[in-house]
């Protein structure tokens, strides 16, 4: 059993795509969660109910939905994004958004009032209060993003449907494992599976270490 350059390339591509997807999803999930917590109304419950229900949506359904939008005859077909790494990034970002919003909402709900109030009582403006709140919530935000990343890197449906598993271009760890199993190459599939688990565990451990340092 050996690690060839293709496997290394697949691992790096998987981390890059899922990392970018997590970053993309965080760009809208963090502000949205904060907005939902700070502007609480009856609609908030409805919105959160919607996001909570979408947390467990099968990845293949998201993939199918995105495939229809990005395919040549779909509304965004003119972008030519189908079967590109960008399509996987977008799909994974959409896939993990409900998870991020649900978890960030819960976390912000617990911490917003206390840090916001603390900042205001010490004479902070709204902007300074927001800064203090975000800085203090950083460890929780990191953990939520890590969970989002784990879900993104471990999903198959989106990567297969909108990525197309193209060798050297859109092949990621999960699609490669699936292909190797079909080919009967269980040894390579197991090797990739091992790397997938190691990657997730490694990132998880390092972020937890970082969180401990920050705290």
């Amino acid at each position, binding site marked *: 059993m050996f690690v060839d350059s293709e496997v290394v390339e697949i691992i790096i591509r998987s981390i890059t795509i899922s990392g970018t997807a997590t970053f993309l999803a965080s760009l809208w999930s963090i502000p949205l969660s904060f907005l939902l917590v700070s502007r609480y109304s009856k609609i908030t419950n409805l919105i959160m109910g919607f996001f909570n229900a979408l947390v467990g949506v099968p990845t293949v359904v998201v993939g199918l939905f995105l495939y229809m939008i990005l395919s040549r005859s779909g509304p965004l077909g003119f972008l030519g994004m189908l079967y590109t790494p960008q399509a996987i990034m977008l799909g994974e970002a959409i896939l993990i958004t409900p998870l991020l919003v649900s978890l960030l909402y819960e976390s912000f709900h617990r911490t917003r009032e*206390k840090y916001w109030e603390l900042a205001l009582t*010490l*004479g*902070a403006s709204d902007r300074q209060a927001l800064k203090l709140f975000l800085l203090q919530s950083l460890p929780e935000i990191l953990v939520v993003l890590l969970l989002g990343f784990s879900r993104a890197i471990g999903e198959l449906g989106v990567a297969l449907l909108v990525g197309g598993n193209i060798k050297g271009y859109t092949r990621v760890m999960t699609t490669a494992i699936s292909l190797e199993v079909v080919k009967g190459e269980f040894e390579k599939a197991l090797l990739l599976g091992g790397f997938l688990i190691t990657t997730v565990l490694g990132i998880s451990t390092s972020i937890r270490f970082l969180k401990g340092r920050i705290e």
Partner: protein
Amino acid sequence: MNIKLVDVWYKYPPSKIALRRVSLEITEKKTIIVGPNASGKTTLLKILSLMYKPWKGAILVGSKSYWELDEKEQLAIRRRLIYVHEKPVFIRGTVLDNILLGFKIRKINLNKHEIIDKALHLLEIFGLEKTANIKPRNLSTGQLQLISIIRALVLEPDVLLLDEPTANLDIEKRKILLRYLEEYVKKNSGRKIVIATHDLLIPLLLEDSYVVVLNDGRIASRGYVDEILGYEYEKLFNVLKKKGT
């Protein structure tokens, strides 16, 4: 700095009314708000600290209606008073980092050594000098309560609003705190303290304190401690006794 509440109502969403038609002016140096649990003490304190906007009614600071001012004017007023929560919150870092947080937030460019000396001096007064470089999570509830009060005192606010400041303190520490608060308001004629508590001994221990008795979100009685020691205070004692507080 005079704060005046005019016919103030406060409602927690969706419909729980916590304060009803409260009119109160903080003119005395020491005002103590007493009342049983859920009588609206904390809500009133948060309204006085200008953190909560009333549902109905007005808050006048001097002659201006606070909630009609622009953000800059509101901030300038808000920085003259500090509210200390019953359950204090701390940021990551040491006790000293937490005490200096207010300076950091306000971006006050005072001599750093001067501020640290001031903070250490206050810690020493309360017997907490050894905690300066310790993380708050390693301290007791009573110590944390005192540290949050020190964090406010170090900024020398005109109005200091304390929510149950003695709830977790032993008799000795309570004595030190109340003595310090007496001195704090004496030092400068503009300073005032407002305390919300169900510890009925506080009004008796603080000289010439003005007592506001709250019950079910309404002001049931008010006056100097010896004036209301009669019927209303006794009635409150009985309510608290029944509730076991």
